[in-house]
C-alpha cells in the first residue's frame, strides 16, 4: 500500500508537539495543508509571504508553541534576511517543509530557475538541508523535527515532485 504522505507528515508534526503551522501554498503541498487546516491540535495561520510567516513562527515559539513553516522553494530569496537576522541570530528552531519545485517532473520552465539556486542558497546560509526524493524518505521527518529543536536552527526539508508522486 502506498504511504499517505499528507497524513504521515501531519502525524509526525503532532507526535513532535508542533502546535503552530504557517503556510504559503503550493500545488504539491495542497494535501498536507488541508490536513493541517482540519487538525484541531494545530493552529494554522496562513501567511501572505514567507518572511512574514517566519515572524509568526518566532512569536508562536516564544509563546510556548513549537512552530513550522510550509512553503515553496521559489520564496527562499525573500526569506534570506529573516533567516539570517532573526532565526539564526536569535537561534530559533524552525523546520521548513519546502516544496522543491523545478525538479524532474516539473511542467513549468520558470520553476527550474529557482530550483537551480535552491540548494546553493541554503548551503550559503549554512542551513541543514534534507532532500526527500522517494516516499520512504518521509520516515526521517520526525527525527529531523527533533534535530531542529535540538540544534535551534532553521532546517530545510526539500520535497520534490518524485516524492509527492509516490516515486512512480
Amino acid at each position: 500500500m502506498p504511504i499517505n504522505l499528507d497524513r504521515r507528515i501531519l502525524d509526525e508534526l503532532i507526535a513532535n508537539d508542533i502546535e503552530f503551522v504557517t503556510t504559503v501554498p503550493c500545488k504539491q503541498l495542497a494535501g498536507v495543508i488541508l490536513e493541517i487546516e482540519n487538525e484541531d491540535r494545530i493552529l494554522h495561520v496562513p501567511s501572505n509571504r514567507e518572511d512574514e510567516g517566519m515572524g509568526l513562527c518566532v512569536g508562536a515559539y516564544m509563546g510556548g508553541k513549537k512552530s513550522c513553516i510550509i512553503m515553496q522553494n521559489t520564496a527562499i530569496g525573500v526569506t534570506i534576511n529573516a533567516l539570517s537576522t532573526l532565526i539564526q541570530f536569535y537561534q530559533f528552531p524552525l523546520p521548513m517543509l519546502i516544496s522543491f519545485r523545478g525538479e524532474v517532473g516539473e511542467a513549468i520552465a520558470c520553476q527550474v530557475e529557482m530550483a537551480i539556486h535552491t540548494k546553493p542558497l541554503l548551503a550559503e546560509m549554512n542551513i541543514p538541508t534534507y532532500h526527500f526524493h522517494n516516499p520512504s524518505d518521509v520516515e526521517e521527518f520526525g527525527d529531523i523535527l527533533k534535530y531542529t529543536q535540538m540544534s535551534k536552527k532553521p532546517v530545510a526539508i526539500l520535497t520534490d515532485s518524485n516524492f509527492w508522486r509516490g516515486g512512480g
Partner: protein
Amino acid sequence: MNRSEVLKAIVPIISDELVICNVGLPSQELFLFDDQPSNFYMLGAMGLCSSIGLGLALSQYSKVIAIEGDGSILTNLGALPTIANNVANNFVLFIIDNSSYGSTGDQPTYTGKKTSLTGVAAACGCECVVECQAEDAPDALRAAMESDRMTVIVCKCQPGNIPVSVIELSPVTIRDRFVSEVERRAVKQKRVQKLTKLS
C-alpha cells in the same frame, strides 16, 4: 512630539506588558528608557515586528503590544490581513507613524503623502483601528489595553531623533529572558485559574 517622546509617554503603560519592539532607534530608545526582560528588541528583520507580535498573542494568554513604525509596516503590509483574519484579543499593534524612516536619517515615507495606514489597516479587515495624535497616545493605548479587543493604533507624530547607543545585549539573551518572562506569566495565570476554580 517625536517618536522618542511618544515612547517615553507610553512607558508607564507598557512597562509590565509583553512588548515586541521595532528594529533600530525604537528598540534603542525603549532599551534606554525602560529596559525590561518583557521587552523583545528586534535587532534585524525589519518589518517582522507585527508578525512576531501576532504569533505570540495567538499562542498564549498575556497581552502583547507590538511597537511598529510606518516604514517597517510598509515593508510588510501583508501582515495586516493576517492580523485582521486571525483575531487575537490580547494583541495591540501600536504603529508610531512619524512619516519617515527615522533610523536611516528621516527620509520621508509615503504615509506623509497619500497613504493612510489607518485606511490600509481598516481595508485589510482590522475591526478596531484608532488613529491618534502623539499627545493622545497614552490614552489611546490604555483604552485599547482595557478593551480586550484586538486594536491597531496609528499614532501620528513628528520625525526627529535623539542620540542613543546600540543595544549591547546578545540576541540569545534577549530571547531567553523574554521567553522566561512569558513562561512566568503563563504559570501565574494557571495558578490564578486554579484558585478561581477552587473558590
